[in-house]
């Protein structure tokens, strides 16, 4: 590959850190620096030259963090756009006795500024046995998400395929599934 462009990109990222922007303005959101640095060394094989400069100062003020595995983190204060974060912890296959999900049907909601999607997810013996879109109120066609419940059943996770080009409905759908899953998990 033409190295010139790669170098341009990596120096561009590095320039932001060299100027100290990320460290000075976002210190308050760093919670556990020691752990973070350790993790960083382990799995940083992407852009080794562009490591963020980490302050070793511990700061416990949490501005934006919610304790629950909420499927929707609204950053509109700082971000000017609707943002979602979802998190997936890997399931240990060695502990089958412990039920991860309580049997039953749970309603999950996913929304962004284009609308909302509500799903009903049924769990039985730690498996998703049924997924239904119970309410669709997006500004887009419902056809966008029509195949997704089937996909969730197949892969047993909310991680349906990312679509390059049209993500609003898919994203809201994923959030709804995640929401339902975390409810089943905490029930």
């Amino acid at each position, binding site marked *: 590959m033409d190295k010139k462009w790669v170098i341009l990109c990596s120096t561009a990222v590095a320039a932001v850190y060299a100027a100290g922007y990320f460290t000075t303005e976002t210190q308050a959101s760093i919670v556990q620096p020691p752990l973070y640095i350790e993790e960083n060394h382990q799995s940083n094989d992407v852009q080794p030259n562009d490591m963020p400069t980490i302050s070793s100062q511990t700061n416990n003020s949490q501005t934006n963090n919610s304790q629950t595995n909420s499927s929707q983190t609204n950053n509109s204060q700082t971000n000017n756009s609707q943002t979602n*974060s979802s998190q997936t912890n890997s399931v240990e296959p060695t502990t089958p006795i412990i039920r991860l999900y309580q049997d039953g049907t749970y309603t999950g909601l996913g929304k962004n500024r284009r609308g909302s999607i509500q799903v009903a997810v049924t769990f039985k013996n730690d498996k998703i046995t049924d997924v239904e879109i119970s309410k669709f109120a997006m500004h887009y066609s419902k056809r966008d998400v029509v195949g997704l419940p089937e996909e969730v059943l197949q892969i047993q*996770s909310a991680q349906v395929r990312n679509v390059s*080009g049209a993500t609003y409905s898919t994203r809201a759908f994923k959030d709804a599934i995640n929401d339902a899953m975390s409810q089943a998990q905490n029930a």
Partner: protein
Amino acid sequence: MDTVVSIQVVCGESNSMEMVEAQINRAFEAFYHVEQACSRFSIDSELMRACRQIETPVPVSPFLFEPLKFALEMAQWTDGVFDPTVGKVMEEHGFNRHYLTGQSVQSTVTDSELVTYRDIVLNQQDRTLYLKTPLVIDLGAVAKGFAIDLAANELNQFEGFVVNAGGDLFAGGVNEQGYPWEIGIQHPESKEHIIHTLDVSNKAVCTSGSYERKSVDVTGMHHIYNPTTRQSPNDWISCTVIAPFAMMADAFSTASFMLGLEKGSRLIEQVGLEGILISSKLQIVKVGGVL
């Protein structure tokens, strides 16, 4: 950036929720910073403020300097087909509405149609921007990619993550099953279908399409504009580029869109990237050995 930004993280048991969320917040802040610096749609952005100062070296932050530098390199590389000085033309063709307020921006800059990227001079030493003549800079084809790269850099330590900004994305590491991320490319004519699927790890995937944003004022014009022909190119309907950085994927997908069938695919090949290009007749062209 009129986009929904979503961040997805796969983390091991050793990561605490607080740390994960803090890191995700930092990643989101990248978008905030880049938007503040590069938005053509708010008169207060660093970009628009700089555009009001002619024949004066203006010191600018790296959030503006770096994507602009990349855009100028691209302009040179494509001999001005890709040109970040198309801002005023875009504005005049109706691409001037702020996505949050809905207000349209009418910049006070009056440029002639003859401005080119050569009217912008960047000084690497003192990191200043100098405009030879009044013009409006448009960083639509690089700024979002740059923000994605900064966000990705914040998430490097996780097993896997996807930063998705309205369909342009960086997929790092592996998904929760331990496999490369599966990324679908939307069918340009029917939203509910995926025309191609890619397995991606530590790569960016960006798509430039003519199907999403059309001009309300001028028929046949969409948000990609070629200043040398003064038209919107229509050889391609969708150009997807896979690259190690999102800024690269973003800029090259736009540039290949501009350059049309032959030159567009050659550009991607030349630089050693991979691409999936779809012609207006819905023919799929794979470039650079992509599977």
